[in-house]
Structure formats: C-alpha cells, structure tokens
C-alpha cells in the first residue's frame, strides 16, 4: 500500500514548496490507516441513506425507485406468500439448481478439455480456437439458436449457462496444467510413474488451485447468465421473477430480485474461497 503511494507521488523539486504543507514532504512515523473494509461499509451505508432520502422526499416516483423499506417489505411478502406462483425460496432453488447442474456439466467437459489443451499439441490445436470463438459471445446471442435446437425445456436453460461456464473452466485448467513444474513431472517419471500416473498423481493435483479459480470465475459467469437463461418459458427462477415483475412494473420486486441475486453471488464466492482454503492449502505457499 505504502509502495504504490510512494510511486504515485509527484517529483517535487526542492524550493518549489511555497511554504504549503505537502502531505508527502516529510515521512510521518505514525500513519493511521483506514481499513478498506471500513471504507466499503461507509460507502454502502451512504448509498442506503441517499436511497432512503430520495425515496422519502419523493424525488422520483416509487415506480422508478421504491424505498428500501418497501423493498424489504416486499422481500418478506414474497418470501412468505410468493410471487407469480412460487415463493422466493422456490425461485431461488430453481435458479441454484440450474446453475449447479450447469457447473457440473462445465466441469465434466471443461476439465478434460483443459487437460487436453495443456498436455497435447493436438488438443490445443483442436480446442483453443473453439474456446476463443465461444468465449466472447454473449449468452443472449446464442440463446435463440439453442432454443431452435433443443426446445424451450430445462436442458436449454442449463446448456446456456454451461456454455458460459465452459471457457473459464477449460482455460483455467489448461493454464494450471501448463504451469506444472517440469522438475515435478521429471521427478515422478524417474520414480517410475507412467504417463497416465503422471497425469493422475502429479498434473491434476498441481493444477487444482488453478482449476478451482476457474470454477469461481465460471460460477460468476454462470450466475450472470441466469437471467438470460430464464427469459424463455421459465415458470420459476430469480431471473424469471424479475422478468415478470418488470412486465407489470412491480419495481420493488425487481429491485429485491436484483439484491437477492447479488447477495447469493457474494455467498457463492465466499463458499468457494472457503473450499479453496480446505482443498488447496498449499496454494501460494510454495
């Protein structure tokens, strides 16, 4: 932190000071650092206050911006009584199920593909261009094609999310595999490991930290594809809930749905980081 502050300071020549107190002119032995977390908390608090104030002063119509209290009230109602024939929990579980089904599909395809890219030139030649082609396409662009091919059922929704997850999983796996130290592989071979044993006992565990990072990115990508996936013919799901609320201008449900999606994304990220700490405690300590 102090290093970046140091490099950013302008190069002031001696005598240019004009008697003004320049904060970086003298090294101060005791600096009180404000933790970034505290700043974040204050920022969020200020935003909430601004939101409450603008809503209660009726600066904008509640159709555009419902008050936090209204959103909270809606949260309680939807959690208890539901919205469009399903409770909030049912919407949430429907969405979570889709995202996790897609994650498992993305792991089953993406990890072997990443492994192939990482260990074989042919694998890289085959899969690299495909992934590079797929990666930048927004999910909404291929959604219609998938519906034409696979219909409007559950598999299409899961597929849309899984495609969004595939590239991060495969590319992170490939990066992890390519990063395995040569010496580690050579040591295993000189201890009698066959090619298959090297992959199973050395390359995959070595790449695990990178694979988990890929899963974390994939989960984020998949979660943000959710609303697109639930655009068509869904009857449950957070994305569907927001969609239908928007059609009837039930803005408080829309805002509440957005907040729930954000909070769940945060929780998922937190859980994966925990899993990383348990599964790959050596990451960053080598």
């Amino acid at each position, binding site marked *: 932190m102090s290093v970046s502050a140091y490099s950013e300071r302008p190069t002031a020549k001696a005598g240019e000071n004009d008697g003004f107190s320049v904060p970086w002119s003298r090294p101060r032995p005791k600096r009180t650092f404000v933790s970034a977390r505290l700043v974040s908390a204050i920022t969020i608090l200020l935003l909430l206050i601004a939101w409450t104030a603008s809503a209660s002063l009726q600066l904008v119509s509640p159709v555009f911006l419902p008050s936090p209290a209204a959103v909270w009230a809606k949260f309680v109602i939807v959690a208890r009584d539901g919205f469009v024939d399903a409770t909030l929990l049912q919407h949430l579980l429907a969405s979570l199920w889709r995202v996790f089904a897609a994650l498992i599909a993305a792991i089953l395809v993406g990890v072997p593909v990443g492994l192939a890219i990482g260990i074989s030139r042919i694998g890289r030649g085959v899969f690299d261009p495909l992934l590079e082609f797929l990666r930048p396409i927004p999910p909404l662009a291929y959604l219609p094609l998938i519906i034409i091919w696979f219909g409007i059922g559950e598999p299409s929704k899961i597929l849309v999310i899984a495609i969004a997850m595939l590239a991060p999983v495969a590319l992170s796996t490939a990066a992890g595999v390519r990063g395995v130290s040569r010496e580690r592989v050579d040591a295993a071979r*000189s*201890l009698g490991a066959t090619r298959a044993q090297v992959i199973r006992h050395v390359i995959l565990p070595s790449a695990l930290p990178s694979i988990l990072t890929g899963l974390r990115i994939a989960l984020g990508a998949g979660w943000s594809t959710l609303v697109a996936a639930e655009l068509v013919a869904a009857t449950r799901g957070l994305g569907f809930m927001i969609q239908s609320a928007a059609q009837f201008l039930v803005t408080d449900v829309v805002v509440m749905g957005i907040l729930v999606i954000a909070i769940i994304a945060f929780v998922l990220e937190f859980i994966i980081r925990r899993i990383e700490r348990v599964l790959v405690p050596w990451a960053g300590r*080598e």
Partner: protein
Amino acid sequence: MSHLILDKVSVLYDGQKAPAVERVSLDISKGDFVVLVGRSGCGKTSLLNVAAGLVEPSGGLATVDGRPITGPGSDRAVVFQNDALFPWLTARENVAFALRLRGVSADKRARRADELLSLVKLGDAGDKRIWELSGGMRQRVGLARALAAEPEFLLLDEPLGALDALTRERMQTTLLDLWAAAQVGVLMVTHGIEEALVLATRIVVLAPGPGHVVRTFETHFGRRYAAGEPIRTIKADPAFAAARADLTDAIFEGEAV
C-alpha cells in the same frame, strides 16, 4: 554389479548449433560416488539428464547393465535442486509415492516411508505438510522419496544448491550416510568444490564449449568419513587443502582468474 555407462555421449538440443556436450564417457558402478563439477555451461546437468533418461543423447550410447537407456526409470531416481515434492501430500506420502505407483498396500508403504524418514533423521515429521518444512528438511524428504524407489543409482542435480551454508554442510554427511546405507551408485552435479571433495570417490571436471572432460580425480575423503573419521578432521587434513587447490586449478584451467 550394476553399471551405468555413458559411452562417448553427445547432447545437441533442438534449435542449437553447438552441442551442449560432446563425446563424454562416464562409468559408474554400484558403490561409486561420482561428482561432476565445472563452470556454467559445461553440460553437467545435460549429462545427468541423459543418465536419467530425461534427455536423449544425439550421439553415443547410455546403458544400464548393458541395456540402452530409453527413458526415466525407478532404477535411476533423480533428486533436483528444487525439491520437486508434492505439496498436496504429507512428508510420509511423498516418500511413499514410488511405492504407491507400484500398488504397495497402504500400511506397508507407510511403514517403509517411516523407516526411510528415520534414515534421513526426520522420523517424527511424517505427518508434516511440505510447506511446513525447512529447505534442508525438504531435501531430506526428497532423498528419502528417491530411496523408496529402491534405485540402483541416485542422480542428484545440485541437491544442496539452494541451502544455506550451515545446512549444506550437515546435509553432506547425511548424503554420505545414505550412500553407505543404501548401497547405491551416485552421480551428482554440484558447484561446490569442497562439497565435491568431501563426497566423491571420483570427481569428473568438465569444461564448456562444448562440454567435455578435462580431468578426473580419484578421491578418498568420503570413504574416510564412511570408515568413521570425523568430517572436521578430514577437512583439516593438509591433503584435503592440496586436493582442493588441484581441483580448483583444473576447473579454472585456461581461464584468467
């Protein structure tokens, strides 16, 4: 009696015009401790990799007991400068790795691993994770792991290169102890002149451009340690100082120092 023989071996890497090693011959028997020394770029590590089967010679022949070396094998276990241990395994599991590859049962390989850990004086570190160990301890685990494969030959690529001077000195006697206990032939690459003298039964001095043998010394200081003489006494022997001067001359021959 096992023999590891490099016969007029040359190594030419892809895309390079000059060979890294040209027509070098080595002969290592069980019980030998052969040390390769020489300035940077003299092809020490290339030769070790040929013996390990990790690099294919572009000329000449590498054999073990008359059979050509076609790839790495557990009869020639390698220990690298950076331990190349597996951080997702405990020290014991690392040592047992070669046995696991062979399908040895879990309790049998744990027992063997503990024996080997005691041999390298890490008897109580079996459950430790690799990142909890110091550099010297890691290298001990690496040696124990190599010995678990029950190799005929131990190939050491600057195994003590990354250690501090004091740990290094202590590890030298550990190496001698292991060499005596395991009855293996050792081929080791080092930059340390004193280290070479302490350990070797034979020192092969290489010079660069392309790598070739300039001189071979038969030494006996390691055997004296194995016979029970303390290492300090050996190093204080005037013969040791004289050998050291000779070896230094040979390494820097033809170079203004």
